[in-house]
């Protein structure tokens, strides 16, 4: 989504960073030059054009790198620099050896265990509930029901469950087994109510209401629509029109660490240990729901074992454990089991979409039209603009008319999951592009290169802060050898007796990983010159901690190993808005960068005072050493960062006064405007389909991403590899299924909800990236976690078509669907 200019936010073109927010310390022109901020400002002021920047940065890019399967990452880093240097995450070893402590490993003395009673029906009214038997069961310490929870759009326990599995009551007991037995003793009677699972049905006037309090099932009003140009005119101009209908599935995030909470009260302070992507979001949500001040809720996390979008904010398990802990006066723990998670945690919503594309015989696209429906679950309202993110931006299309309908449904809760919206949207968009290329008998790569729009975001009508899509496509094609491996659109019959190979490719635009701040961070320089970064944000496994350390080390000029990131704790760090939308690098990283620069400046002010200099402009801090820029060899003007830290000053009324203690650099970075900020990338895949069994094996994956600039190439490669694995699952196996007549999930377990194992990874993976240096991101960087997921599924979809001649328009593309498609064709 484009950042709209808003009056309160900072505007580079009109002003100066400092004038709008005194906490934003960008005083040092030197620092600005160093980080590239100065150049961005010159562009903003019109002194340089973005083209100059791109030209400069293109020159900076790629230093003779020619990555093969294992790129030589060290070639990418400038000598003496921390940023860009391949760095292994400090906790990697602990995680691999099982030594790492996750939030779910929290056990407190005297702790009780929780189990909840879930609705067996997708929609019902609880007509009566009797907990006396459960309360009397030995070892049970408290039972709460929907009568005991605060009101909320989705109350933590419900009197009118609106999806099968919604919690009705909860038990705290001495052991998990006792809690489980006690739940079975709760006597509850339901009055079944009509339910609806399909968003297309839900939006019909006569449909059953998902909740009795709803006037209509529309989850948004108005629903999402977007038009530009005149679609009807565009289709009239088109010489060929292609159409698609796609369906994707409910997917759970399946984080390795299950959702969890341990709540404990100390007088009026509620402490919750929980795996979270956003501690402040959790704390503030809990505070609001319980009606207590935010300062009375402390949320802290150890390592979070994966979130993928489903561990942000407040969840029923936070409220339930908090209430049970209050009632019992003891710590209360709830670790959701996998079934709990499948039934009651968030899920990615499926997309039911139709779309058509008009093209001219020369390959020019004239028009796009489409409609999508999503089931939002009983309470959520899922975004529909993201579903059309890639379709409306990636390619030059003058006439567009798309709409997305979000409906309440009596289905599992929905939340964001890695590239929510774009993931299904890209499956749809690239399917259309492939069909168009096929209809025109064009090479799909040529068709895309001809049509991509890389200068301007056609929706926001703003220039991109960086766009390396063309370079990504070209680099990917080169690595894959697309030109020689693409054999044209096969029309002939397929030999169904043996496995067939096929290739497919994809291009995408994504808004994840590109979000700019707002962002707050605190960077402290300790008395010995070591550095503590306090973001309040989490490392959820993506290596964010390492990236922030590298940014802070580079910005201040100290060694990487002296920088530590504080554990996530709402009482220790400022609200960093959490790790979602792949914000870790670009948003949080920007905050860390500015806070580090602020701390550095404060440190150098002390040095200037000691050296009797009027300002810090002639002082350099590099690799832990402080010296005069103009006279680096002069030992009278040299000290270590530890000595500098001891020489603290504080400036009051422009007068520096000596002050001991920790140097605190801080930043509250506002949102940036004037640019459209997106991530881009391309994928090239080869697969093999066995037409007899419908089994797909991925043979080769090439992904090239526009990452702005790689801060930590090691982490970057890991993230892309993870995206490939996740994307292959999404493409081929992951789906949560309903029993349509009863509205109950049939496969809430990892036996029937299939996830591929490591053996599904292709034998050959090539990962590369292009570095157009983003105008806004720290050191030009953008995020990667979510965009990395986008190429596999649409590429595999295209490759199946290439291999056996059928488009499988339902994701996941299971053996059953592939065999059905083949049978239909035959």
């Amino acid at each position: 989504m484009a950042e709209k200019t808003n009056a309160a936010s900072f505007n580079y073109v009109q002003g100066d960073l400092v004038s709008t927010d005194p906490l934003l310390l960008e005083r040092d022109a030197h620092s600005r030059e160093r980080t590239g901020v100065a150049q961005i400002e010159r562009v903003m002021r019109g002194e340089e054009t973005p083209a100059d920047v791109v030209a400069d940065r293109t020159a900076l890019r790629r230093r003779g790198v020619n990555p093969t399967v294992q790129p030589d990452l060290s070639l990418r880093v400038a000598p003496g620099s921390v940023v860009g240097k391949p760095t292994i995450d400090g906790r990697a070893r602990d995680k691999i050896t099982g030594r790492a402590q996750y939030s779910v490993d929290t056990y407190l003395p005297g702790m009780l265990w929780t189990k909840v009673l879930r609705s067996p029906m997708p929609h019902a009214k609880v007509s009566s509930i009797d907990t006396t038997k459960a309360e009397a069961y030995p070892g049970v310490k408290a039972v709460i029901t929907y009568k005991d929870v605060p009101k909320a759009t989705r109350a933590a326990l419900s009197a009118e469950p609106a999806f099968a599995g919604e919690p009705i009551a909860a038990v705290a007991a001495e052991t998990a087994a006792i809690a489980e037995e006690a739940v079975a003793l709760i006597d509850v009677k339901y009055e079944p109510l009509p339910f609806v699972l399909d968003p297309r049905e839900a939006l019909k006037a006569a449909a059953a209401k998902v909740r009795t309090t709803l006037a209509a099932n529309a989850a948004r009003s108005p629903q999402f629509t977007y038009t530009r140009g005149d679609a009807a005119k565009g289709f009239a101009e088109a010489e060929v029109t292609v159409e698609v209908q796609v369906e994707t599935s409910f997917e759970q995030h399946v984080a390795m660490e299950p959702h969890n909470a341990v709540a404990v009260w100390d007088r009026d302070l509620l402490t919750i240990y929980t795996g979270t992507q956003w501690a402040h979001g959790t704390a503030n949500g809990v505070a609001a729901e319980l009606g207590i001040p935010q300062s009375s809720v402390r949320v802290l996390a150890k390592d979070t074992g994966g979130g993928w979008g489903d561990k942000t904010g407040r969840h029923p398990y936070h409220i339930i454990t908090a209430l049970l802990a209050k009632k019992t006066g003891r710590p209360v723990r709830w670790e959701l089991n996998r079934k709990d998670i499948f039934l009651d945690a968030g899920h990615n919503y499926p997309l039911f979409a139709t779309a058509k594309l008009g093209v001219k015989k020369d390959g020019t696209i004239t028009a796009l039209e489409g409609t999508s429906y999503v089931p939002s679950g009983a309470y959520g309202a899922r975004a529909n603009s993201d579903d059309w993110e890639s379709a409306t931006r990636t390619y030059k299309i003058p006439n567009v008319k798309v709409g997305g309908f979000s409906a309440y449904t009596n289905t599992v809760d929905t939340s964001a999951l890695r590239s929510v919206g774009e993931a299904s949207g890209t499956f749809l968009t690239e399917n259309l592009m492939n069909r168009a290329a096929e209809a025109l008998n064009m090479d799909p790569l040529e068709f895309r290169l001809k049509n991509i729009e890389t200068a301007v975001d056609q929706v926001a009508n703003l220039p991109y802060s960086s766009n390396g899509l063309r370079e990504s496509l070209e680099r990917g094609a080169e690595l894959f050898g697309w030109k020689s491996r693409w054999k044209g659109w096969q029309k002939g019959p397929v030999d169904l007796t043996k496995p067939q190979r096929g290739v497919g490719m994809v291009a995408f635009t994504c808004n994840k990983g590109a979000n700019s701040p707002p962002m707050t961070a605190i960077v402290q320089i300790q008395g010995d010159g070591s550095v503590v970064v306090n973001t309040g944000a989490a490392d959820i496994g993506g290596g964010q901690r390492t990236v922030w350390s590298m940014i802070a080390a580079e910005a201040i000029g100290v060694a990487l190993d002296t920088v530590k990131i504080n554990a996530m704790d709402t009482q220790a760090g400022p609200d960093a808005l959490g790790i979602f939308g792949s914000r870790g690098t670009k948003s949080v990283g920007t905050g860390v960068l500015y806070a580090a620069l602020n701390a550095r400046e404060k440190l150098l002010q002390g040095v200037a005072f000691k050296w009797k200099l009027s300002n810090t402009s002639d002082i350099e801090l590099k690799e832990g050493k402080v010296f005069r820029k103009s006279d680096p060899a002069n030992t009278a003007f040299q000290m270590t960062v530890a000595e500098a830290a001891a020489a603290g000053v504080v400036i009051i009324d422009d007068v520096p006064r000596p002050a001991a203690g920790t140097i605190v650099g801080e930043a509250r970075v506002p949102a940036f405007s004037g640019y459209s900020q997106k991530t881009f990338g391309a994928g090239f895949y080869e697969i093999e389909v066995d037409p007899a069994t419908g089994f797909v094996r991925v043979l080769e994956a090439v992904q090239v991403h526009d990452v702005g600039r790689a801060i930590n190439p090691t982490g970057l490669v890991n993230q892309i590899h993870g995206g490939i694995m996740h994307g292959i699952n999404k493409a081929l196996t992951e789906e949560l299924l309903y029993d349509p007549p009863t509205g109950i999930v049939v496969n809430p377990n990892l036996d029937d909800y299939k996830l591929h194992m490591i053996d599904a990874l292709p034998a050959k993976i090539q990962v590369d990236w292009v570095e157009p240096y983003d105008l806004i991101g720290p050191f030009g960087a953008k995020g990667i976690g979510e965009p990395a997921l986008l190429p596999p599924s649409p590429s595999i979809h295209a490759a199946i078509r290439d291999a056996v001649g059928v488009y499988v328009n339902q994701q996941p593309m299971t053996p059953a669907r592939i065999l059905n498609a083949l049978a239909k064709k035959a």
Partner: protein
Amino acid sequence: MGSDADSGGGKPADLSRRAFLRGTGAAAVGVAFVGFGLAEAFRGAWAPGIAQASGVIMPDPSLCIGCLTCEVECSDVHKAVGLSDVPRIRIYHRDSVTVDPEIIASYGARGQFFQHVCVQCPDAPCLPVCPVKALQVESRTGARVIDPETCIACGKCEQACIFPTPIESEAVSTQRYGQKSRITRDEKLNVYAKCDLCSFRPKGPACIERCPVNIKINQGQLKSDVLCLDLLKPVDKANFAKMRDQQTAPKEARP
């Protein structure tokens, strides 16, 4: 599942006939209730001395998905009370059946099926041929039942039955019973077995209760004016004749 489109237009002909039968049946019950004597007169006219069954299991082939729940349930409930486990209702393949579009829309094209079950003939040709009077009229339901203690397995009733079944290889189940008509020999117990309307079951015939299509129709999840298996009251002669026609029409003439 379940479209909003009016599925009435797409109903095969025999469905509307079923609706008609059911309608007249219901009306006639009312008459019979008010004017008891009249109904008695009807019965008397049919087959003197034989009480009419209170209900007839009436299948609707167009609604059948061939799941065999009725067959297996029939076996199970009879076995449970110590009777022969030979299924009294059997499902056969029959390509000429037109499947209700509502069924195809909800459950896919699963094939075409025909159900063979005793219709409790008013004149019950099986009754008089039994040399040991093992075939009797059950007092509560009027079902024509075989007493396995008395049955000598002579096979006369099987031959007397006017509803021959097709060759058994056309049966959907691969289980073979040597079935020739709607009265079947149980080789293990050496007795004959036929539909007894589950007269020992207060809830009535198990097949009707357990038929998944019936269950879905009763739950309102499947639109249909009639059930796949129903217990209809054949109170008048004309009505019963129509039912029997439906069950005995030559194969090629069947809907």
